[in-house]
C-alpha cells in the first residue's frame, strides 16, 4: 500500500509538481475539500445539527405510548387445572418502522402454580421457545393476533387462583423496550366429585347385602347404598337427597363418616347433609342399608332401588353453586362387579 502511494506520489512529483508548484497546491486543496466533506458527513451523521430550513426527524419512543400495542385477553377466567388457558394476544405496530423479535414471557407471580407448557397452532406470527413467545416481525402499521394455549402446574393443591403476568421486550430505535402486564386472574373452579353406588358385595369381596340374588319375589334382599363426596377444595352446605321407591325400605345398617343422615318416612326421602367439606379430605362417605321385598307382579323386572338423586353444594371460596343429579340405582347393581346384572326378580 505504502509502495503504491509512494510510487503514485513520486510519479506525480516527477511529472507535475516539479514542473509547476500549482499542481501541488491544487492537489492539496482537493484533498482538503474531500476531508472536509467527509468530516461534514460524519459530523452530520453523529451530531444532527439543526440547520435553518432543514428538519431532521429520527425515530423516537414515547414510553407512555410505545409503538407496539400488546393486548391480552382470556377465553375464560375459570380454568380446570388439567386443561389449558386460552390466551389471545392482539398486537399492533403503530410505529413507522418494523419491529423485530418481540419476546413475551408468561410467568406466575407466586409459587402456587407454574406455567408448564405453551402451545399455539399459529406458526406464522410467532415462535414458541420453551416458555417464551417470540413475535418475529411486525411491519410498521401492521396488526394481528396470536392465540396461545397455556398449561399450568399446581404446586399448592389448596390454591384456587392463578396470578400471572406477561413480560414483553423488544428493541426499537436502538432502545430496549420492556413492559410487564398483569394478566386476568384465572380461578380454579371447585370441582365436586360425587359418587353414588349400590353394592351387595363390596369391591374388596365382603358380603354387605343379604338375601337372595337375583331377588326373589316376596323374599327380602338387602343392599347397601353409598354416597361419597370429594373435592380438592372446600365446600359448604352440601346436601344429597334421593327417594326410596315403593317396595324399598330403609333398613338398620348405617355407616356415616361425616355429616348428618335423615330419612323422612312420609316423603320416603333420604337426605345427607354436610355443613362443611374440607378439600382433600376423604372422610365424606355415607353408607346405608335398604331392603327390597319384590312383589309377584314384579317378577321379570329390574327394580329401582334409589331414584331422584340430587346433590347441591356451594364453593366455599366463590360461593358458586355446584349441583347435579345422581344416577338412579337399580337391582342390576351396575357398580358391583361380583353381582352386576342379577337384577331381574325371579319367582319364589
Amino acid at each position, binding site marked *: 500500500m505504502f509502495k503504491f502511494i509512494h510510487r503514485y506520489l513520486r510519479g506525480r512529483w516527477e511529472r507535475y509538481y516539479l514542473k509547476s508548484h500549482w499542481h501541488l497546491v491544487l492537489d492539496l486543496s482537493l484533498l482538503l475539500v474531500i476531508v472536509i466533506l467527509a468530516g461534514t458527513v460524519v459530523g452530520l451523521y453523529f451530531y444532527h445539527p439543526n440547520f435553518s430550513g432543514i428538519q431532521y426527524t429520527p425515530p423516537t419512543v414515547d414510553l407512555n405510548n410505545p409503538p407496539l400495542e400488546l393486548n391480552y385477553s382470556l377465553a375464560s377466567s375459570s380454568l380446570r387445572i388439567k386443561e389449558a388457558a386460552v390466551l389471545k394476544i392482539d398486537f399492533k405496530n403503530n410505529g413507522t418502522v418494523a419491529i423485530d423479535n418481540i419476546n413475551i414471557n408468561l410467568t406466575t407471580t407466586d409459587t402456587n402454580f407454574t406455567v408448564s407448557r405453551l402451545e399455539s397452532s399459529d406458526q406464522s406470527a410467532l415462535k414458541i421457545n420453551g416458555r417464551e413467545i417470540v413475535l418475529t416481525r411486525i411491519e410498521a402499521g401492521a396488526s394481528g393476533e396470536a392465540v396461545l394455549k397455556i398449561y399450568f402446574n399446581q404446586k399448592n393443591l389448596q390454591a384456587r387462583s392463578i396470578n400471572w403476568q406477561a413480560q414483553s421486550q423488544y428493541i426499537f430505535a436502538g432502545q430496549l423496550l420492556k413492559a410487564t402486564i398483569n394478566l386476568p386472574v384465572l380461578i380454579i373452579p371447585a370441582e365436586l366429585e360425587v359418587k353414588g353406588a349400590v353394592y351387595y358385595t*363390596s*369391591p*374388596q369381596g*365382603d*358380603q354387605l347385602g*343379604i*338375601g*337372595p340374588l337375583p331377588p326373589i319375589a*316376596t*323374599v*327380602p334382599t*338387602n343392599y347397601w347404598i353409598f354416597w*361419597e363426596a370429594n373435592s380438592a377444595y372446600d365446600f359448604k352446605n352440601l346436601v344429597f337427597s334421593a327417594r326410596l321407591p315403593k317396595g324399598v325400605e330403609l333398613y338398620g*345398617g*348405617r*355407616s*356415616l*363418616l*361425616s*355429616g348428618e343422615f335423615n330419612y323422612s318416612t312420609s316423603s320416603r326421602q333420604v337426605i345427607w347433609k354436610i355443613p362443611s367439606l374440607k378439600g382433600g379430605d*376423604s*372422610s365424606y*362417605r355415607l*353408607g346405608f342399608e335398604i331392603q327390597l321385598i319384590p312383589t309377584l307382579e314384579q317378577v321379570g323386572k329390574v327394580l329401582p332401588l334409589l331414584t331422584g338423586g340430587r346433590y347441591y353444594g356451594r364453593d366455599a371460596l366463590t360461593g358458586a353453586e355446584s349441583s347435579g343429579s345422581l344416577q338412579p340405582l337399580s337391582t342390576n347393581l351396575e357398580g358391583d362387579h361380583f353381582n352386576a346384572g342379577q337384577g331381574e326378580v325371579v319367582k319364589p
Partner: protein
Amino acid sequence: MKKVWLFILIIVCFWPFASRAAVLKSTYPRLANYFLKWEISDAEAKELAKWDLLILDMEMQENSRAQILKIRALNPKVIILAYLTGQEILDDVNNYNKAYLRQELNQGISDGWWLKDATGKKVSNWPYTSMLNLSNGAIPDQNGQRFNDYLPEFIVNKIKASGLWDGVFYDNTWGDISWINAKSLDLNNDGVPDSRAEADRLWAEGYKRMLANTRTLAGQDFIIIGNGKVYDGYQSVLNGMMLESFPSSWENGGTWASSMQTYLKLPTLNVAPQTPVINVYDKNQLNYRHVRYGLASALLGDGFYSYDYDVMDHGQTWWYDEYNSNLGVAQSRPFNILAGANEQIKPGLWRRDFKNGVAFVNSTDRKQTHIFYKEEFEKIKGSQDQTVNNGQRINYISLAPQDGLIVLKRSTLIKDAAFTNGYFFRVYNLAGAQLRNGFFSYLGAFPGEAEVVMTTGGQNGGSESNISAASGEVGLYKNGKKVIAFNPYGRAYKKPLSLAAKLDSGYLDKIIVGAGRGGGPPVLVFSSAGKLEGNFFAYDKNLRGGVNVAVADVDGDGNAEIITGPGSGTEPRIKIFSLSGRLKNSFLAYDAKFNGGVNVAVGDVDNNGWAEIITAPASSGGPQIRIFNSQGKALGSFFAYDKSYHGGVRVSASDINDDGRMEILVGLKNFY
C-alpha cells in the same frame, strides 16, 4: 405337727383320686363321644379331649390310664364316664387280653346270678355274652348278695375308686325283659317260665335296685347314665339316658317326635346334673345332613350330642364344623315355627335360640323355607359341607327334609377396645384366617371417624362407660350421657386423637391419649374421671405425624403397658412404656425405610394369658398386619385386604364371637 404333715401328704397323694363333682358347661353345643375301645393312643387322647362328655370303656382304666389323665390335663372340664354293660358279660372273658376289669367282675359273679330260662339254660341277647339276672329273683351268694348288690359295689370299689371317672354309663338299662325270650324266662329261678308281666316286673324292680344301690354307694355327685329304651321308673336315680341311634326305633314308634318327646322330658325326671345324650350313627362319616339333623335336634334340648359309625363300632373321633360353633348359653325353649311357636312336639320346623346362634331342625318330610324379615344370621364358615356352611349372611333358610342347621348371630359391636366409628372391619385370627363376615362398626351416638371404646362393665348391672375421641376432644359417656369432656391438647387442638382405655374387668380405669395425624408425639395418661396423671414423649418432639396408642399387659408382669406406634414421617418403631412413661422395649414393626406410620392394638390373640401387639400401616404401604410379643418377636403376619390397597388400615382386638379369645379386627375407611 407330724399329724398335720401326714394329713397334707395324704391329701396331696390322693387328691387326683378324690371324688369330683362334674359341672356341666353352660354353653352349647355339648358334645359327647361314645368311644368304646378298650385302649387308646396318645393321639386319640388328644383328639378325645375336644369333647365335653366322654363315655369310655371301663377297661381304659387299666389299659390307658395315662391317656385318660392326658385327656383331663388337656380338658380339665371334661366329664368322663366308665362304660359297662350291666346286664351281661362275655362268655369267655378270661381269654380276652386286656379285659382286666371284666375278668375281675366275672370272678365275683355267683352261679345263681345268671339269667336263665325255665330249662336252666343261660340267656344270651348279644353274641358271645350271657345275661345276668338283675332281679331280686337271683339266688343270693353265700354273703346274701345278689348281682344287683354286687355290681354297684364293683362300680364304687373298682371304678370310682380309681379316681379317673366322673360316673358310670350303664348300657342296656331296659325297663323290661320279656321281649328277649318271652316264653321261657325264669327270673325267680322257680323252674317255671315267668309270665311276660312278671318277668318285666321282676326285671325292672331289680334293675332299679341296682341303680339305686349305685347311687347310694357312689353318691349324688357320681353321674349315672343309662342307655336303651327309656324307662321312667329308673329316671329319678339317673342323671340321664342315651338315645342311641336317634331317632331310636324303640322309643314309642321310632319317630323323631317320639324320641324328642323322650329327650326333652328326661331332664324333668333325672337328677342333676342332667346329662341326656343323643347318639346318631351312620357308616358314612361324610353324611353331613345326618350330622346336622342329630346335632340340631340335640340342641333343642339341654343334652349332649354324639355321632359315630355304628352300633357295633362306637369309636370314632369325627369332628364337624358345627362342633366349633360357639353358640353360648341357651336363650329360649324350642318352638315350632310352623305351628305358631307352639312347643308341642311334632314334625315341624323347630328353632331354639342361643346367645350366639340359633339351631333349626326340619323334622318334616318336606323342604321348608323360612324368611326372617327382621333378623339376619351368618352361616358357619366351615371346611366340610360348603353348600351349607359357607359363611354367608342369610335372612332366610331353606332346609331339606330331616335336616338341621346351625347359624350364628351377627355381632357388630367391638367391645372393650378402641375402634374407629364407621369403619368397615374384618375379623381375623392370629393365623390370618377370616373368621366372620366383615361389618361396619358404627354407633350413631358418636361422630364418624371418632375413636370409640365401649366397655362391658355395665353389662353386669354396673354403669356403662363409653369413651370417644374426635376433633381434639375426649368425651366420657355413662349410660348414653356425656358426663365429662376435656381437650387433652388444649381447646385449639381440633385434630384427630388416638385413644386407648385400660380396663379393669370391663370397667374404665385409665384413658390413654395420643395426638393424631398432624400432632406431636406426647402421650397423655388420664384417670377414668379425666384427670391428667402423666405424660411423656414417645418419639422425637419435633415429629408431627402424631402417635398411636394402645394399652394392655403385654409382658405378663401383671401391669399394663402403653404401646405406641409412630405417625408418619419416621421409622416404624413400636415402643413399650410403663404407665409412668419408662421405656421398656422397642422394635421395628416394618422395614426401617417405611415411614407411613403404624397403627397399634393389643389383645390376647393366642390365649397365652397376656396381650400381643398388633400393628398395621397407618398410611401408604399394603394392609399388612403383623403380630408381635413384647420382645418384638413376630408371631404372625397377613394381608387383611387386597395387597394393592395403600390407604392405611386401623386395627383393634376384641372377642367379637364370644369364644373367649380375642380376634384381630382390621378396619378400612373406604373399600374402593
